[in-house]
């Protein structure tokens, strides 16, 4: 069916038409709320990407805001993984422990993490710590719960194999439980990544002294819509990049999983 094999060029149709249409309309109407795409891109370049080549073309503004924001996401995710995976595996392998801990987890995960941002401000004061705390509180649950689900669903025959060959518990962990749980862990990571971006922006909007959200807040107060839009576009790009990195890593680490599943279907 030649229709199905639509290649790359077609994917861009609606997007390109949309942007072009917006450009045309904005040039005609000059609506302050919807600046032209060209103006937005120009603003982005001027604010962030017109720096010296030695700094990867990043301006001081960029290094002072974009990098801290990214750093908070990475730190938050890192802590969530470092805490969530081990606890998830322990709770997943022990049905008894899971019994104690499950209702707590379900409740904690149901709390919208945004509600705790004000609390974290009180505890940590405005700044990086409070943001990372907010990000960790939001991102740890998908990782923990998915790890639990993965650890719980290890194939019983694989477990028996480990028993029969008398593998010690740490070998079992490294070579059986962890690899078997990785597919579900990565599913949790993808969910957490998008949450991390949301929570980073939110916590910066609520209270921060630097960062992309901080810049957007200032722009909103100053009625600088072009900068506001610039921030939105930048966040979209960042989100896309972060997701892509995650997918690339996942494809490498889980190459065996895709191969095995293809065979099973």
């Amino acid at each position, binding site marked *: 069916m030649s229709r199905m094999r639509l290649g790359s060029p077609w994917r861009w149709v609606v*997007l390109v038409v949309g942007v072009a249409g917006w450009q045309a309309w904005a040039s005609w109407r000059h609506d302050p709320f919807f600046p032209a795409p060209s103006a937005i891109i120009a603003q982005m370049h001027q604010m962030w990407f017109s720096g010296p080549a030695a700094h990867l073309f990043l301006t001081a503004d960029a290094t002072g805001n974009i990098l801290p924001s990214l750093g908070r996401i990475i730190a938050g995710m890192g802590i969530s993984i470092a805490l969530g995976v081990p606890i998830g595996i322990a709770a997943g392998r022990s049905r008894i422990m899971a019994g104690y801990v499950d209702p707590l987890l379900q409740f904690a995960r149901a709390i*919208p993490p945004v*509600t705790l941002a004000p609390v974290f401000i009180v505890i940590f004061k405005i700044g990086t710590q409070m943001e990372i705390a907010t990000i960790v509180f939001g991102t740890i649950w998908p990782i923990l719960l998915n790890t639990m689900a993965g650890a719980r669903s290890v194939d019983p025959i694989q477990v028996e194999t480990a028993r029969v060959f008398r593998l010690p518990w740490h070998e079992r962990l490294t070579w059986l439980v962890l690899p078997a749980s990785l597919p579900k862990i990565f599913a949790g990571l993808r969910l957490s990544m998008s949450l991390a971006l949301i929570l980073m922006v939110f916590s910066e909007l609520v209270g921060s002294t630097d960062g992309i959200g901080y810049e957007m807040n200032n722009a909103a107060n100053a009625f600088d819509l072009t900068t506001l839009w610039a921030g939105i576009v930048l966040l979209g790009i960042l989100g*896309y990049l972060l997701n892509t990195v995650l997918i690339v890593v996942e494809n490498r680490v889980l190459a065996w999983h895709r191969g095995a599943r293809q065979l099973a279907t």
Partner: protein
Amino acid sequence: MNPGTSVRDSPRTGKARAATWARGLAGVAGFLLLLQAASWLKIISPSLLPPVFTVLARAAGLPGNGQFLGDLAATVQAWAVGLAVTIAVAVPAGLVLGSVPLVRSATRALIEFLRPIPSVSLIPLAALLLGAGLRLTVTLIVYAAVWPVLFNTIYGLDDVDPAAKDTLRAFGFGRLDVLRRVSLPSAAPFIATGIRLASSVALILDIGTGILTGRIDGPGIGAFIADANTGANGTPIVLAATVWAGILGISLNALLVWAERRALRWHHAYSVEAR
């Protein structure tokens, strides 16, 4: 040497289920006691973080506060309206994208660009554009919640058994009929899961918008928290409201699960054998 399903699988006997309940309760109680002890022993400074029992006492008292009840109702209302609009937009869009490969491919880049934009980043812009009120909150909810429902609808359609569709086509039914009679019912569980995911996202946007814009934007738990935050010694109240936000999240999710089970009673995934 197939060990089969271990006894450790889902507890079916009454005794096992009671044991799980008991453990869960013990876990919650133990955790709360631990936190309370930490406050008593001054490990956690009470000026920084109020003791657990204080928070729980406040939380129990909140329903007596008329303004809080109004805020609670407003949050639920925004959630419901937002979710309804989301479903009305995302499901048909998902059906079109899932059924017509041309449209799906053409919109792919657009979706890939829109999707990663964190919805909260639109709050300042939307606040300037739309001004205060339900409209603002609902718009933001819809923008964020559309994605899980849209994608799950598309995945659900992808997963439909081609043999079932072909059978109907062979009997002379048109494409629209196949969609209505086979694809949609088959994809229903996926769509339901997407709606549940959308629900928690919706709540985040709902309350988050309230926190950022405050009471000028109208009532809501977010506005309540924003108010409490500005007042002196508001931390216990904020935490109490957080507890209620959690209860709200669980209740709304349970509501959706119940509705899902009722609406999809006929679906084989919900049959007694599957449980």
